[in-house]
């Protein structure tokens, strides 16, 4: 298994500001991902965090809005930039130990409210 610590657990932010969310795993993992779960909806993949290189973004998500860092095999950050109320959501870090035949583990999430 993998234990994921995500910080902050929640925040209320002013529009136009940025928030950086941290994801720390208790062991080295191959894959790290960032998801968004909007109220009452499913999880949407934002990007795959790649160690030592630029993240791989899904359609509809761009680096300028959601810059991601992954300096090593246990840590990643997601920044939500120039926030608007539409960014209000739960942001989830997810990890997989290996690329194949393993489950994904999820952090508790960061509940973001933009006012």
């Amino acid at each position, binding site marked *: 298994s993998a234990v994921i610590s995500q910080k902050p657990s929640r925040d209320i932010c002013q529009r136009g500001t940025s928030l950086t969310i941290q994801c720390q795993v208790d062991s080295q993992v191959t*894959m790290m*991902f960032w998801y968004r779960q909007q109220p009452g*909806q*499913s*999880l*949407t*993949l934002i990007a*795959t965090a790649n160690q030592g290189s630029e993240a*791989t973004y899904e359609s509809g998500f761009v680096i300028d809005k959601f810059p991601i860092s992954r300096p090593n095999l246990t840590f990643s950050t997601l920044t939500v930039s120039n926030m608007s109320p539409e960014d209000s959501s739960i942001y*989830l870090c*997810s990890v*997989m130990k290996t*690329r*194949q*035949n393993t*489950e*994904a583990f*999820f*952090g*508790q*999430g960061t509940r973001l409210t933009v006012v």
Partner: protein
Amino acid sequence: AQSVSQHNHHVILSEAASLELGCNYSYGGTVNLFWYVQYPGQHLQLLLKYFSGDPLVKGIKGFEAEFIKSKFSFNLRKPSVQWSDTAEYFCAVKRLYNQGGKLIFGQGTELSVKP
């Protein structure tokens, strides 16, 4: 486009009723399949997973799922639900040999069990 479809948005059952939640995915190739559960106010937890072998897999809390490759389906079942099964259920699919191993989620099914 890649997709994971869950047939039911909201299911309401009485205790002791049988449950079947449908899940279909739209692409071929080798996949890993998962069902996750999210209890109210809690983070995502793995119910069960299929990697290979016996297409009938058993998970926690009496849940099971059957992988039918010809139908691209992975339906979740439980013979007798309990009030404590009230939660949101998510089907997820991972394509093994491309797409970077990312996990794609269905829309989710909200299960309400009446005592």
